[in-house]
């Protein structure tokens, strides 16, 4: 088989493929969470949003194929996934801003609720197959199938890659970006300037959830490209750790997402070259990586540079 022909080259190639293929959910969710956390709130519920986004994208793509055709259907699915994310984001934003309600607890509740909703409405869509998002074939110059498939890039990933510097510019050079940073770093100062803290946070949480929903759409409409209850492996949660690792900087979120996408595919890449033992342990590498990163970057002696002041006990 061609795998043997590639030999050990299959591993780094597999990892690179993973970076291009698997980083988009991390990217969208982490950018969404970065936006949310810049305003001083944490949304742990993005794991549930991811699932709901994946399910609704898949369902809409499948159901609308007849009316809009298989080219537009998946993009419609992406849009609806974002909207579904916004609904969940609204629930989170409203509840977590009530007095005495614990942010983190709301996030956990939203994971349960979001997953429940996704699985409940998604039951009929597990079997059928929905139109998928297209891909740019950047590896068409090669005649090795592994390279061809490794260099397939989804336009959605490119959208994400564009959003990262856009967000960085947004935080620096627009009034709204400054408002968000003020609210997240020093709510007292924002209040003194007459900024509505509740409004800013609500908009940030909803916008963040929109992005997370799109991250979910990527899962079901591109890679792995199907809808099952096992489609997410904790990307939503890892993205929260990713934002801390990236020091709340959107561009660094981009690099970190690529790193995590690559880490996710270490297991399958090794399996493809015949290393079977420890399969489950290799698949746990993203979680171990996340944990290690958090251990290394956090310190009890000083607050992390770049941490929005209002985030409190998260960092």
């Amino acid at each position, binding site marked *: 088989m061609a795998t043997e022909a590639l030999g050990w080259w299959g591993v780094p190639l597999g990892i690179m493929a993973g970076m291009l293929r698997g980083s988009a959910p991390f990217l969208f969710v982490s950018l969404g969470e970065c936006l949310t956390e810049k305003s001083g709130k944490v949304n742990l519920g993005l794991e549930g949003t991811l699932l709901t986004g994946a399910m609704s994208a898949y369902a809409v793509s499948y159901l609308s194929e007849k009316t809009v055709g298989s080219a537009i259907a998946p993009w419609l699915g992406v849009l609806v996934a974002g909207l579904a994310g916004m609904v969940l984001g609204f629930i989170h934003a409203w509840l977590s801003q009530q007095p005495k309600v614990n942010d983190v607890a709301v996030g956990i509740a939203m994971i349960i609720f979001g997953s429940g909703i996704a699985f409940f409405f998604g039951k009929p869509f597990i079997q059928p197959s929905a139109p998928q998002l297209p891909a740019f074939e950047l590896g068409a110059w090669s005649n090795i199938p592994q390279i061809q498939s490794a260099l397939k890039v989804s336009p959605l990933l490119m959208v994400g890659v564009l959003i990262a510097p856009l967000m960085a510019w947004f935080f620096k050079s627009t009034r709204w970006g400054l*408002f968000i940073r003020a609210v997240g770093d020093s709510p007292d*100062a924002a209040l003194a300037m007459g900024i509505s803290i509740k409004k800013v946070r609500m908009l940030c949480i909803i916008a963040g959830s929109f992005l997370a929903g799109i991250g979910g759409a990527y899962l079901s409409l591109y890679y792995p490209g199907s809808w099952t209850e096992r489609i997410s492996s904790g990307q939503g949660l890892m993205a929260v750790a990713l934002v801390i690792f990236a020091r709340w900087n959107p561009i660094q979120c981009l690099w970190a997402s690529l790193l995590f996408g690559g880490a996710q595919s270490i297991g399958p890449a090794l399996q493809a070259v015949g290393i079977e033992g420890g399969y489950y342990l290799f698949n746990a590498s993203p979680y171990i990586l996340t944990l290690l990163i958090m251990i290394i970057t956090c310190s009890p002696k000083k*607050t992390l540079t770049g941490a929005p002041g209002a985030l409190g006990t998260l960092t």
Partner: protein
Amino acid sequence: MKPAVKTIEMKELTLPPELEVVNMTKQFGQLIALDNVSLTLKPGTFHALLGENGAGKSTLVKCVMGFYKPTSGEVRFNQQVQAIDSPRDAQKHGIGMVYQHFTSVPAMTVAENLVLCRYESAALIDWKAEYEVLNAFMATAPFKLPLSVPVAQLAAGEKQKLEILKQLYLKSKILILDEPTSVLTPGEADEVLGLIREEVVAGHLSVLLISHKFREVTAFVDEITILRKGKFAGSGRVKDLTIADMAEMMMGEKRIPQTVQKTLHPDPAPVLQIQAIHANKDNGLEAVSGVDLTVNSGEIVGIAGISGNGQRELVEVLAGQRTATDGQVLVNGEVYRASRTEMFQHRVFVLPEEPLKNACVPHMSVAENLALRTFDRSPQAKGWMLLFKPIREAAQSLIKTFNIKTPSPETPISNLSGGNVQRTVLARELSSDHINLLIAANPCFGLDFAAVDYIHSEILEARNRGVAVLLVSEDLDELLKLSDRILVISEGKFAYESPIADADFASIGRSMAGH
């Protein structure tokens, strides 16, 4: 963007409007914070609002600024009634306020903070143009600040200057200053108030200054209004009133200055020895850079200094809330690491600043908070088991002795007023039969005169009993009154030390500024 800049320039040329507060009342539930108060701020005058803590000064200005909606009463500009519903509204009328606490965003630069506080700035920020405007503004401003430094890295004095600069940048015509010099050295305070006074005299500004410092009032202010317990208590021109008159109006009666009786202690023994202590701030920068100090029994050692010079971190090291990066602390000659057994063994007690935040558990009851140091010993515990009855009885006795106003010992301590929280902590820390060392930090902050007198007398009494007292305070008057020896901390080091009899106010002021 261009039109917004123009509007700001236009405002500069006119005299500030006359601001009148007419019969303003503000009620919070049952509490009447402000009762039918009236005040006139004439254009181009420097007006002070005096009163002790809790008199209603902050409430009044917050109503004017639109933070609170007054229960009744109105605000008039040049005789015309105006409703001010929010700080934004207030800004539109040209009123700006400089708060006691900083309202700049620490993570953002000076430039970003200045641009942010303008309400009419555009959605997209053209930094090149903004920097041009900012640089031009800085050139004519009374103080200079670096534009691209994050506010978190500025010193406390610079942060306060930024607050004032913000209002000048916004071309406010009426400036309300809430205790603006509390974080400035006496020299800086004079500089700031002097420059503001120049603007007032030139007719660019009217200023309403909240202060309790008579020195500033007599030096810079034209007129004063005095509040007492939410009501109007007097007003007049500064040149017609003496300090004694003003004090009497503030207090409601002639205040006899407290004489401080200090007993002599012939054989002082060192109780607390701080040796070459270094400690960091929360953000990792060094706050305490090597301090040495000895406190003997029966003496009060005072540490003066502007907030932000390392005294908070030093107190936290001594109280066990922060680990020192170097050096050691000895109590009674033994190395002290602030463990619970060491605290009990050496009888060390702490009165930290902001007691609710630093020394109390808000959701726990008054009784439980009172038992914080004793709950794991007999009679309040037997082995591992807590005994509730002794805890309750001890609490009831302390509540009575120290006059803590609480509905019951089981009330959560967060329901109590600030003064009563302080009394609770005082009761807990000062009630022990045998105290060796007392560390107090800003114990009287935010309290009314009666409470302040009470706490001062308790601390003095402890000193006279033989307790070693380390008193860290930002209130120089308090330190001058109570200390036997006074030191000044500046940028993490001690910059001045002298027995109280030889203390020289001018030198102290200079050391606080870092000279």
